[in-house]
């Protein structure tokens, strides 16, 4: 080390101090970038959801190309957890402790998120806009660092229950549900919505596992129970089978289909439009395969984005609409943070969203959060399939206080 190096020391020290003062308490944020972490199942049985993680990355690429957020580029780090909670814990710890991200955004799945729930709150790191419809993420008092995004399953179940109680005399209800947290959560909301009469009105429940090849057997049993209302809690693959089989065996109940499988192109057309006529669902996002949105401005923007930034993604895949919308929500929150991108402020701004409208949310649906309201989207609207598209009817329904 010679004399010239010694001269540099004070300068280096000055820079270090100056740099550290501004970056002192703001983890994952520098003057030029903000680090955002994510876990998604890119492998394993839930890998179909992995497109969400990829689409989010594609959205952030677009934001970066357009200048970033308040002058900072997004550094998006996403890891595969294979939908296995132990792996999620490992990967999230890596994000928080090694990669030192500012926040963990949209980790996917109820068991994975349950596994990291306590950790995130202990470490005071935002677990923001989690990708699950479970109800437990709206608990600001006990878990102030965790927030969901989509309308939760129980609320949707209650909406269907209310509809049945109002519109069907002598209802005899049959339910088909996936035997996991998603299916059971919907079922719980539905039963809660039916209230004391639930055990009387529901004449049969049939479950299936994701690894089952078909649900034909269950549909036959449900028809046989004499049910005139059918609450169909299935993911797209099984929804197609259920709709088709019910039609083939001549069973025509009032058919309530959960939102997860409401895509016209992925579910209703393969099942057959004749078989799908009269189906009712609750929607909150626009469906690319539904002809009524073909020339919608928001939809056209989305298609252009898909083609430019995520060409390997499939347009018919509703997950890509979901990913786009939730990414937009995060970008809105981060912009609202201004120059203070500390974790505390990120959560503060996330809990301070007022009447945010997104181009792909149904008209009338707005995102709202508050210090006691950690459920961003609580509204949805019922729609009936007329053979060609989903006809929205009634008003936009709010979950309000549950």
């Amino acid at each position, binding site marked *: 080390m010679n004399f010239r190096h010694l001269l540099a020391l004070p300068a280096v020290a000055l820079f270090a101090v100056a740099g550290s003062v501004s970056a002192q308490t703001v983890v994952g944020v520098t003057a030029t970038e903000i680090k955002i972490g994510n876990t998604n199942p890119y*492998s394993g049985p839930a890998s*179909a959801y992995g497109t969400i993680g990829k689409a989010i990355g594609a959205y952030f690429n677009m934001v970066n190309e357009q200048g970033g957020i308040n002058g900072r580029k997004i550094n998006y780090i996403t890891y595969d957890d294979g939908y296995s909670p132990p792996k999620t814990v490992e990967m999230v710890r890596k994000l928080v402790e090694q990669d030192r991200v500012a926040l963990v955004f949209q980790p996917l799945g109820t068991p994975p998120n349950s596994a990291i729930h306590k950790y995130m709150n202990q470490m005071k790191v935002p677990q923001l806009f989690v990708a699950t419809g479970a109800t437990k993420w709206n608990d600001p008092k006990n878990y102030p660092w965790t927030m969901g995004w989509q309308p939760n399953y129980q609320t949707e179940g209650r909406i269907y229950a209310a509809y049945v109680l109002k519109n069907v005399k002598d209802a005899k209800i049959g339910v088909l549900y996936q035997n996991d947290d998603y299916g059971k959560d919907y079922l719980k909301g539905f039963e809660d919505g039916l209230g004391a009469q639930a055990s009387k009105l529901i004449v049969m429940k049939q479950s299936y596992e994701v*690894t089952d*090849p078909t649900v034909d*057997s269950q549909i*036959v*049993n449900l028809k046989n129970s004499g049910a005139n209302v059918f609450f169909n809690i299935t993911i797209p693959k099984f929804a197609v*089978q259920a709709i088709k089989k019910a039609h083939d065996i001549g069973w025509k109940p009032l058919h309530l289909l959960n939102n997860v499988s409401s895509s016209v192109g992925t579910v209703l057309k*393969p099942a057959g439009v004749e078989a799908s006529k009269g189906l009712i669902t609750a929607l909150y996002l626009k469906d690319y395969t539904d002809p009524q949105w073909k020339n919608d401005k928001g939809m056209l923007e989305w298609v252009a984005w898909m083609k430019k930034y995520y060409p390997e993604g*499939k347009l018919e895949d509703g997950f890509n609409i979901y990913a786009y919308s939730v990414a937009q929500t995060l970008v809105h929150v981060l912009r609202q943070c201004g120059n203070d991108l500390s974790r505390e402020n990120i959560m503060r701004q996330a809990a301070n969203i007022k009447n945010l409208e997104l181009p792909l949310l149904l008209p009338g649906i707005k995102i709202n959060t508050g210090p006691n309201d950690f459920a961003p989207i609580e509204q949805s609207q019922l729609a009936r399939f007329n053979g060609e598209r989903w006809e929205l009817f009634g008003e936009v329904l709010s979950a309000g206080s549950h």
Partner: protein
Amino acid sequence: MEIFIQQVVAGLATGSIYAALALALVMIYEATDVVNFAQGEMAMFATYVCWTLLNAGMPYWAAFFATLAIAFAGGIVIERVVIRPVENAPILTIVIVTIGLLVIFNSLAGWIYSYVQKPFPSPFPKEPIRIGGIVFGAHALGQIAVTLVVLLCIWLFFRFTPLGLAMRAAAQNPVSSRLAGIRVGWMLALGWGLAAMFGAVAGIMVAPVLFLDPNMMGGVQIYAFAAATLGGFTSPLGAVVGGLIVGVVENLVGTYVKFIGTELKLTVALAIIIGVLLVKPSGLFGRAVVRRV
């Protein structure tokens, strides 16, 4: 009564899905003494190849047979290139290699074709067939028919052709077979080729029902193992019967055993299989293992 018949029919339909893949599993085991964990993924990958051909405009049956040929060749190549280096390793080491193939095929399919599920055409009519009050899916019947045809071909091949005999000899006693002039290495490769081909048939038959995606065969493969175990790994007939039994029993249990209902269907099916194994340890139609001291 009607519901009983309807459930049995539905069970036969799902059972034939298991049976189709179980046949491929038994084929490889008969020919090479190896349980190929990658069988389901190879079948899935072959189905994607068929999908690619159909998308390029090939008519259904042309694509079907072209895929079978490609699968056959692929199976031979895999045996000669991937399995050959560990041919003489302990059996579990070979199993690990097949597990490696499993993850490779699954991952490649997801990478090349994405994980979005795709509809796959069926060569059978869409309208269900109604007999009496019972509804039969035309595709399900067609699937059962194709499975039985494949079973017949396998049986004829192993029983009546010199090549089939040579293959069985090579699997059971490679040393003596070599002395008899049989090229054991190529017999093994042929076994893999045929199994891959039958796996492709299974995949193509099953895809219209299950929808084509990289994890399509995951659940089915497990049931296929159960079916082959029940029927006896050394018997193609056993594989088919095993598959049909598993499908039917599962449905009947789910329907009639009320306190179990549908939430323990799989558990009961597996318990039954283990129960059968205790009575007949080599499966219903399997050969008993004779030990030389």
